[in-house]
């Protein structure tokens, strides 16, 4: 099985190697670049690192907020697309566009939309009368966070919607028929038929999306590079800077390993949830 070998070689061995490196002090900036074994010192440093805790907190906030928005919008979109209407095929295809665009491109696009001077977002809000003065969407911490989440939700909701749509289409139609004969309202049909039957797929979609949002990098790297003042810095961005700007490989690997461990915890949580479901 060559595939298994490749995957183990490229994915699992490096994880162990990451952990091994994180037990060393290794800075490529220093001329000798020797690595010394220093045990768990990097991890002790990590516990006291305010920037790491802040990045972890911001990553979790980003993940929870964007994934819940995606779920709500994705479900609405799936319910819409599950109806029969003209041009349904075209509609289904066109919501795939945000999904297919490279994240980097969509990040550039949203950076421009949120531009403080010439951005279309300011213009539209101004015309509707929601804001009076143009805002610097990516220049103020709370607004920057909000803007990034909008960009993320735009890009990833289609995926959630299509997964849920596939789930909706698996639900037998006669269940609804029976419910209607029994006099159940639309809302109650949704509550007692759609939601329970859709639950396993919702969980799978959540698992994929949570892990994917947790490792967010491209979007924030392009839109704010973690700014203003590190207010949108997430774990993978902090790790990237430590590794390739400060060239501190020992500490960077410790950060990497923490990222990996948290992702692992998230997936274990979901797998347990899924198991109890089935």
């Amino acid at each position: 099985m060559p595939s298994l070998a490749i995957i183990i070689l490229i994915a699992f061995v490096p994880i162990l190697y990451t952990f091994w490196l994180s037990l060393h002090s290794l800075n490529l900036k220093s001329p000798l670049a020797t690595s010394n074994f220093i045990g768990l010192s990097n991890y002790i440093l990590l516990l006291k690192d305010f920037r790491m805790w802040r990045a972890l907190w911001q990553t979790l906030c980003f993940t929870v907020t964007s994934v819940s928005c995606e779920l709500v919008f994705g479900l609405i979109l799936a319910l819409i697309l599950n109806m029969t209407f003209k041009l349904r095929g075209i509609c289904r295809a066109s919501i795939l566009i945000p999904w297919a665009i490279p994240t980097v491109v969509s990040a550039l696009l949203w950076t421009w939309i949120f531009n403080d001077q010439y951005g279309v977002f300011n213009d539209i809000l101004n015309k509707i009368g929601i804001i009076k003065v143009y805002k610097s969407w990516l220049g103020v911490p709370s607004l920057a966070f909000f803007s990034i989440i909008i960009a993320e939700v735009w890009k990833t909701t289609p995926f959630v919607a299509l997964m849920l749509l596939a789930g909706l289409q698996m639900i037998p139609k006669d269940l609804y028929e029976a419910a209607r004969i029994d006099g159940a309202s639309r809302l109650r049909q949704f509550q007692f038929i759609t939601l329970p039957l859709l639950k396993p797929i919702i969980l799978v979609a959540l698992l994929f999306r949570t892990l994917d949002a947790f490792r967010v990098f491209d979007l924030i790297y392009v839109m704010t590079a973690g700014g203003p003042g590190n207010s949108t810095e997430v774990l993978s961005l902090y790790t990237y800077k430590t590794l390739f700007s400060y060239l501190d490989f020992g500490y960077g690997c410790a950060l990497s390993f923490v990222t990996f461990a948290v992702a692992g915890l998230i997936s274990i949580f979901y797998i347990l949830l899924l198991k109890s479901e089935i």
Partner: protein
Amino acid sequence: MKKTSFLIIMVVILAIISPFIWQVLTSFKLPSEIFIKPIRYLPSQLYLKNYNAIFTSGPPFATYIKNSAIVASGSTLFCVLFGSITAYALTRLKVRANKLIMALFLSVAMFPQIAIVSPLFLLMRKAGLLNTYLGLIIPYTAFNLPLAVWMLTSFFKKLPLEIEEQALIDGCGPLGVLGRIVFPLAAPGIFATSILVFIFAWNEFLFALVFNTRYTMRTVTVGITMFPGLYEIPWGTIFAASTIVTLPLVLIVLLLQRQIISGLTMGAVK
């Protein structure tokens, strides 16, 4: 279907794709139309200089496209090749640890790439693979193989066993069965898998950013973030480049939506 709800649906769909339309519109605007207040929504003319500029001046955009094309098709080829052998083995041999292997596979696909980027960087440096095509093809193949195996397995499961048995009886070797019978029969599935892997490889950013830093070896996604601006960011050129990078993907998606959607959602539903 009532007319009003149909209208609402169309508005929703339009709102979803409007940022993309905005990108295309901006790419056809004169610089003086881009940096203007209040905003002008439609370009006054079909200004093509932005498209011209990306190929004639500044960074070697055509080279970026070539690099991305080579890396993405290379990864797709390897993924499908290794993926179908593995998937075939998984469906035909009754491996006891089947489910475990699958779970292992899928967990890799959801790995945070940042967790392994540093050791891979050191390994690539040692192997002299930084700034080469292979240096990106190998990790892309590894990260997309799980998806490929997952998709291909469910396609292979649908193939009838009898034909293969017949071929074996007629004196066809196992590789012959794979090449002459399984591949042709599973062609639609292999095609769908290839599209998805290609899109993912084409869109990847972190590995490309870290491993291929040399000017001439950058991929499109990295190159596009590095358009230099003298006084202000050249949005017109950036969006012309973006449109060129996205257009093939948009066409693929519009033409092959059925295959893509079935590939994306297959794992979840079963």
